[in-house]
Structures are given as C-alpha cells and as structure tokens.
C-alpha cells in the first residue's frame, strides 16, 4: 500500500476550545486527516502555557473561551510575545454571530476564520490551503524578520511577475512592507495601480497611510473617509481617521469617529483608550468614563492592558460620582498588575488627586511624593507617558513650575516623537496653561535639533572629538533622547573606523544604542548602526 504524506501530517497542532465535545470533535477530525501530534487547551491561559512550551505549526482557536482571554486576545498575546513561529498558521474558529466583533480587531489578524459547523473534509482543504500559502510566503517573512526589506520586496516582485491567482494578496504584503520601510513613493504607486482596477479597502487604506506619513493630513482624511462610507464595518479606517483628525487638532471629529468605531466593535482596548483620552480633553466626562471602563474591562486579559486606563477611570469616576467610588476603582490596579512600578505610579498619581478632592490633604501629599519618586526612576523615553501624567497631577495641585519642568523634560528627551509632542500640546491646552508654554515646545525642539545638526556637521568635517564632546554634553541634559544617543553612537563608530576598535568604546556605543533599543527597538537607524557595528567587529 502506498502512503502519500500530505501537507497536514507531521505537524504539531494546538486545539483551543472551552467545550470538551468541540475539542474532541476537532481532534477526531484532525486524526482522521492523518495528524498525530495534537495538544488540547481548555481556555486562554492554558493555550498561552502550551504555546510557551512548544512551537506549533497550526493553532485552531475558538473565539469564545468563556472566562478570561478570548481567542483574539490569545492571538494578540501569542504574536506580541513571539510565541508563534514564522510559518505557523493561526485559525480562529467562530460562531457566525461573533464574526462582526472579530472583524473589528485592531492590530493582529488570524490567517483565517473558520465558521462553525464545519466537517472534516472542509477542515482538511482549508488547512492544506493555509499551510501551502504560508510555505509560499516563508522566505518573505524571514526577510522581513531580518529587516531586509529590499530582499523581501525583490522576492515579492518575482512572485507577482508570475501573475498568480493571489496576486493582489502579494501586492498587499508588498504595500505594507513599503509603508513600514517608508518607501512612500513606491507604495503610493502600488496602491494607485490596484485602485485603478478595483476599489479595495486595503489599498485605499494604504494610500491614506502614505498621505498621513507624508503629513498630508487632509488628503489622508479624505481617503479614510471614503473607506468608511463604502465599508462601514472596516474599523481600521476609523482608527486612522481619528488619528488624522487628532493630528491636526480636530478633537471633536476624532471623538465622533471613535464613538462610531466602538459601537461597531467595542472590545478593541487601544480604541477605547484613545476615545477616553480625547473625551477627557473635550470635557465629555460621561463618554470618558464609559470608554475607560471598557478599556479596563476588555483589557484585563489583554496585552493592551495599561495602568493609565485604570487611573483615568478612577479620576473620572471620582468626578462623575464620588471619591470613594474612584478609590474603589484603584484597588483593581493592585489586583490586575503584579509588582509593576508603572502601575504603582499611576495608582499613586490618581490617588493623590482623589484624596485632595476629598479633603484628605495628608494622604494626598504622601501619594504625590510616591508618584514623583517613582517617575524619577523611570526611563524618560520609554516611560514618557508618566512624565505627562505627573505634569497633569502637579498642575491640579497648582504646582505650575514643576509641571512645566516635566513637560520640558519630555520634549528634550523625545523631540522627534511627533505623537508624544501632540500629547504634550494636548496636555498643555487641557491644563489651561500659558499660551507661551505652547511656544516653548517649538523653541526647545528647535534647540535640540540645532545641537544635533552641529554635532553631525562637525563629524562630517572630520572633527570627531569635538562632535563627541558637544553631543555628550547635550546628552547629559536629555539622556533618553533617541536622536542624540544615535548620533553619539554614530560618531563613536566613525572614530573607531578611523582609529581601530577599542573594547571600552565598543561598550560605550552599545550603551548608547541600548538606551534607544529600550524604547524603540524597531528604529531603522538603530538597526543600521547595530549592523554597522557588527560588520566592523567581524572584519
């Protein structure tokens, strides 16, 4: 008898479902397809544990998992923690009524949705297709993982040239890679070519992103709006639309869009968080309370869990209802975060405000001091959100100077981070600070940029020592500033390339690069400098 091994066999499978009947049914189906290695998990926690133990080729995960994480949160956590291999297939099993909810996922999408009921033959053909597809794309994924975008695009071009059935799927992947590596002109051409043939939401979204990244916000808004009109369920377009409105300070519009988006898909934590934050600035306390309470509720088992949502919910609950209710919310932080300094900080910061409003001045002081101490110990780039939070708290205590000092520090350390600069501006406007304060942002940013420019110019003229000196002086004022750290590393590398490597200098370079890596591991310049250091050491 001939035995023809298929695509499905000799692979490791994980089946996640809270119903025993369903688990054993899927297991039987897989075994009937010749699969031997099958692990089972009853809920999200078990699934994550299993995913940590072994590398699975295929995960079949039900969306509804009872208490705890749902299927989407399992996927998010698995991707976030790199628990899935590059060639792994993740299939979300859904009952039809969860379909719309699932479609609202923000960042991570499964490789396929499988609607119940399905039979063995159906499962087999679907899995064969998915595994073959993953194998076909493996080289590209590997290139992307190594940040070799040029190579990834090259492989894609070769495949696209053969005009396969999944041509547009390949174009979509290529478009994403081009946008992520900021090759905006090429990306735009690709999206326009696709749209010339047919209106497809992903291509329109890509075009909108190109406009957004090129800072053509009004055009970006037009593109995103068009998707929203044609595909009211495509919530990604809402997120980008809100983001674009926020960027040009149209907060009322941003809030309205997000309100629509959360009514379509309420479980996306980052979306609720953004709505809550914007509603706070717009002084819509009820909406903020509802948004933060959902961000907390749906975030409890999610990688998007963030203590700021708890703190904001506590503060807005205290305002809308009473202080006791607010403090009650804060108790949840301790439960949901285990020995997390950042959570402690947010708790202390919110506590101080609530106590102050309740007239417990001593308790308020103690909490405020605790928050301030914790904030000082944080990385000023990675945890810049804490500086902003404390600045708001100080302002509420009438401590204008301290507040402004913190905001200045946040600007110094993160002057190229446009989003954070927006947050700083929002903070300043929501705190009714002096108009002049807004002006200082631009002044400080200009000052930092000038210092960096000078340093780079000196280095280009061969005055490496002078460049190092200037940049290091700058760095003492803004130790977490990415541009400064990257420039120092660059200049040190240049002097090593000129004078030969020294162990001390290598350590120094690694130290500066590590500061950036902590807050922004995907930074393109950072990766280039790491590569340059590696090449030099291997020569």
């Amino acid at each position, binding site marked *: 008898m001939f035995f023809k091994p298929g695509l499905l066999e000799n692979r490791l499978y994980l089946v996640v479902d809270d119903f025993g*009947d*369903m688990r054993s*049914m899927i297991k*039987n*189906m897989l075994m*009937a397809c010749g699969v031997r290695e099958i692990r089972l998990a009853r809920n999200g926690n078990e699934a994550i544990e299993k995913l940590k133990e072994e590398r699975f080729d295929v995960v079949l995960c039900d969306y509804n998992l009872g208490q705890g994480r749902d299927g989407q949160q399992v996927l998010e956590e698995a991707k976030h923690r790199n628990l899935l291999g590059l060639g792994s297939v993740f299939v979300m099993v859904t*009952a*039809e*009524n969860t*379909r*719309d909810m699932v*479609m609202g996922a923000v960042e991570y999408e499964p490789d396929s*949705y499988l*609607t*119940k*009921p*399905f*039979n*063995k*033959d*159906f499962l*087999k*053909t*679907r899995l064969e*297709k998915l595994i073959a597809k993953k194998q076909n794309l493996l080289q590209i994924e590997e290139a992307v993982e190594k940040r070799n975008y040029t190579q990834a695009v090259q492989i894609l071009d070769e495949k696209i040239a053969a005009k*396969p*059935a*999944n*041509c*547009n*799927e390949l174009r979509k992947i290529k478009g994403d890679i081009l946008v992520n590596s900021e090759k905006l002109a090429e990306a735009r051409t690709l999206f326009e070519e696709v749209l010339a043939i*047919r*209106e*497809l*939401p992903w291509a329109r979204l890509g075009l909108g992103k190109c406009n957004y990244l090129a800072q053509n916000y009004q055009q970006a808004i037009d593109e995103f709006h068009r998707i929203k009109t044609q*595909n*009211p*369920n495509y919530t990604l377009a809402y997120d980008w639309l809100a983001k674009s409105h926020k960027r040009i300070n149209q907060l009322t519009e941003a809030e309205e869009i997000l309100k629509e988006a959360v009514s379509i898909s309420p479980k996306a934590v980052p979306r609720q968080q953004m709505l809550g934050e914007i509603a706070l600035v717009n002084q819509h306390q009820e909406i903020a309370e509802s948004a933060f309470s959902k961000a907390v509720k749906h975030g409890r088992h999610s990688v998007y869990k963030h203590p700021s949502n708890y703190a904001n919910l506590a503060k807005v609950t205290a305002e809308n209802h009473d202080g006791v209710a607010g403090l009650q919310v804060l108790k949840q932080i301790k439960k949901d975060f285990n020995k997390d300094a950042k959570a402690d900080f947010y708790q202390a910061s919110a506590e101080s405000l609530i106590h102050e409003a309740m007239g417990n001045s001593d308790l308020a002081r103690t909490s405020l001091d605790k928050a301030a101490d914790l904030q000082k110990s944080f990385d000023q780039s990675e945890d810049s959100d804490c500086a902003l939070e404390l600045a708001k708290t100080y302002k509420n205590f009438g401590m204008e100077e301290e507040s402004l000092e913190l905001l200045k520090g946040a600007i110094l350390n993160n002057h190229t981070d446009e989003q954070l600069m927006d947050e700083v501006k929002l903070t300043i406007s929501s705190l009714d600070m002096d108009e002049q304060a807004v002006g200082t942002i631009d002044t400080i940013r200009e000052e930092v940029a000038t210092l960096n420019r000078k340093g780079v110019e000196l280095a280009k003229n061969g005055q490496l020592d002078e460049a190092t000196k200037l940049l290091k002086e700058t760095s003492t004022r803004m130790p977490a500033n990415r541009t400064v750290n990257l420039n120092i590393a660059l200049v040190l590398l240049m002097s090593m390339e000129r004078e030969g490597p020294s162990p001390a200098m290598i350590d120094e370079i690694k130290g500066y690069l590590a500061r950036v890596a902590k807050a922004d591991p995907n930074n393109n310049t950072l990766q280039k400098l790491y590569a340059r250091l590696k090449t030099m050491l291997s020569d």
Partner: protein
Amino acid sequence: MNFSDILASLIHDMKNSLGLVINTIDDLGQEMQAQENPKLGTLQHEARRLNSNLITLLSLYKIDNGQLTTNIEEIDVEQFLYEISVDNQATANNMGITVRYESDEGLVGYFDEWLMRGVINSLIGNGLRYSSSQILIHAEFVDDYLVLSIDDDGNGFPQSMIDAQTAQKNKKPEQGETQLGHYFASLVAHMHSNGEREGFIKLANNQRLGGGCFSIWLP
C-alpha cells in the same frame, strides 16, 4: 430584550447543537463505511437544511436590523468552489447525487465569502431535493460580472417562477422555503456592488445539466 432578540439568540444556540448533530452524523457515516445510505443521507440532508435555514434566518434578521454589511474580499474562486463541493459531498453521496464544480484556474472574485457560502449552500440544499443524479457549481466571467451558477438535472423551475422573476425582484416572498432562499440570495446579490453596478440573480432552465439553473451575478 425584545422577542426578535430572544429569537436570534435562541437560533444561535440551536445552530451550535445542530453543528454537533451534523458532525456526529458525518462520523457515523464514516464508521458505517457504507457507500450509499439513503437514511443517513436524509438525516444529513435535513440537518444541513435546518442549519442553512437558520443561517438564512439570522442573516435576514440582521439585514432587517441594518446590522449586516458586506465584507468584500478578494476570493480565489476555484478554492471557494472546491471547499463548497467538499463540504456538501458526503451528504450528496448518501443521496446518490454527485456534486461537481467547474471554474477557470486563477479566477478571482470580489465578494463576501461568508454570505455567499451561506447562499450557495442553501441553493445546493434546494438542488439536492430536485436533482436526479448531479449538481454542478459553475463560475465564469460574463460582461464583467462574476457569474456563480448552480445547475441540477431535475425537472427545472416551473415556468411561472421564471416568468415572474423580473416582476418580483425585490418583493418579499409570500410562502415556501425555496422562495425564501431565493429572496435571501437576491438580497445578498444586491448587497454586492462595484461602482454603479449591483449584483442580481437569474433563474433559468435547460442550461448545463438540463434541469434548473440558479445564477448569481456579482459585479
């Protein structure tokens, strides 16, 4: 909670039970290893019909509430038809009917996969009742429309139904499960649009297999 919401949630629960029933019947069929088993065929067929009727009902409920919108994706049509034929094969075999599909290789369509799957499964379910030995699912491009048709070799649609189709395009069906299925297919076809053009359905007789031919035209 109003009555229709209760109904929707109950239907959903029934669908879950039915899913288990269908899979158990499929398992039984495999254990018995009978090549053709009319009784099992009837069980499978009726359970699947129940299931697709419930899907239709839920979808109509959602359309009525304005909750259902299309999620248009690019679909590999051959794979789509292959999956559908595989899905219906076991039931059809037990009824002594073969299900085939024909599609050009590399054919790409733009439609809501889940909705169209529901529509085609329910049409095949109808076809199984009226067909004598075979059903053909066929896909091609005509005048820039993707035409998905389901042909059987039965006696075809009554002439009155074929004559009436232009008149009753958007009319709600009066009675009869077949007409409800057609009404649903028509609603779903109309939900698919590309620019100015909208999808539609067509009934005909004596096409590829000599019996009835139901086609869905998607722009």
